[in-house]
């Protein structure tokens, strides 16, 4: 059984496709990265996956069944939104009390530990919390829920570097103790790239990349040097993008460089280096025309 399965999922608003024919399968107990620019459709996808939005067409399954008005399925899902709202008069401890009643696998111990680490006052009213503190509440709910499918949508708005480290460390700890399927949507790709096992990249509502993170690490590279030499090297290769500074050219190339390619570049007097996940995402989603498989 898959933790989540989408088949030809489309969500339209007045003829505009927010999601356009997305098909993917998430296995149980893995950590997925959902990446893409603002407005790409990540949040919409997570809303449809958690039955908070109807799909226009296509199929959604969570742990084998349609999650819509399906209490059993919904208790296995915890979705932490980027700008999660809580009732006006709730204190932090009220939020946690409600969450603990919603999630059967709730860990009070985890919640308490995180409250301490984030230095979050339990009795403070949620509306009085700073943006970062509010994000911390979401993170606590997400991790302590121990939900079989936990989704974090940009969970760290306003969180400083220390607090983000607390999040990553506890995410790993929790995941190691009790494996679950985690979907992490983030713009801070370099920070999370080591955590992610599988990457989905969305651009303008379409899934343009569905790949194991480990394979992506050797999937693209950059070459830099004198423009004429770089151009000669690029002949026949699949170029993602080029940047020029005077006579100096840097190009991003899709494909595996390998030891042979590395040696060839060096012999030609060029610098070659693999692209980081963040650079790859920038290259694949940064241009106006959009990424097309096989385009040069």
């Amino acid at each position: 059984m898959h933790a989540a399965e989408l088949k030809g999922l489309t969500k339209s608003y007045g003829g505009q496709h927010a999601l356009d024919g997305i098909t993917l399968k998430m296995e149980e107990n893995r950590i997925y990265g959902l990446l893409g620019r603002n407005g790409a459709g990540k949040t919409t996808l997570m809303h449809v996956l958690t039955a908070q939005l109807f799909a226009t067409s296509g199929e959604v399954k969570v742990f084998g069944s349609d999650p819509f008005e399906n209490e059993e399925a919904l208790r296995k899902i915890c979705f932490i939104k980027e700008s999660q709202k809580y009732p006006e008069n709730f204190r932090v401890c009220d939020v946690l009390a409600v969450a603990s009643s919603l999630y059967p696998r709730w860990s009070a111990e985890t919640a308490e530990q995180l409250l301490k680490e984030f230095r979050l006052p339990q009795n403070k009213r949620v509306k009085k919390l700073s943006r970062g503190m509010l994000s911390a509440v979401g993170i606590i709910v997400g991790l302590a829920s121990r939900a079989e499918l936990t989704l974090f949508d940009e969970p760290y708005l306003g969180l400083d570097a220390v607090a983000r480290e607390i999040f990553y460390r506890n995410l790993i700890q929790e995941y190691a103790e009790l494996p679950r399927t985690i979907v992490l949507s983030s713009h801070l790709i370099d920070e999370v790239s080591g955590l992610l096992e599988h990457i989905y990249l969305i651009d303008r509502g379409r899934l343009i990349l569905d790949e194991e993170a480990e394979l992506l690490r050797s999937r693209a590279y950059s070459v830099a040097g004198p423009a004429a030499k770089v151009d000669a090297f690029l002949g026949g290769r699949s170029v993602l993008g080029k940047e020029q500074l005077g006579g100096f050219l840097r190009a991003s190339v899709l494909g595996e460089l390998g030891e042979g390619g590395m040696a060839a570049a060096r012999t030609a007097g060029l610098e070659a280096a693999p692209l980081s996940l963040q650079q790859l995402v920038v290259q694949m989603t940064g241009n106006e025309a959009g990424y097309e498989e096989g385009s040069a």
Partner: protein
Amino acid sequence: MTFPVDDGRPIFQQVAERIEDDIVDGSLAEEAQAPSTTHFAQFYGINPATAAKGVNVLVDQGILYKKRGIGMFVAEGAREKLLARRRHQFYEQYVVPLLQEAEKLGISGEQLASLITEKGRG
């Protein structure tokens, strides 16, 4: 974050090398317990499955061994085994690029040799 390094090599391989480094420089002694994969994952901010894969590479090579229910330990003779392998790799990894760069800069073999012996004298 300085680790994992984005040099295109799989993270699990880098994990294995980190542990090897610790064994080679003696900070992880033979018969000592290696850090758990969870600690490893937390320390470097990587997925526990990836950390476990790196550890398993060393188990397969007989560098680490598993004590059931306790954890991973450094095998006897692991350091010598790693040193032998690294000496073997030294020429390819260090000497070849050194010679290439020296040639590019017009440093002759004799000059290079004297640079090394001077450094050796302090």
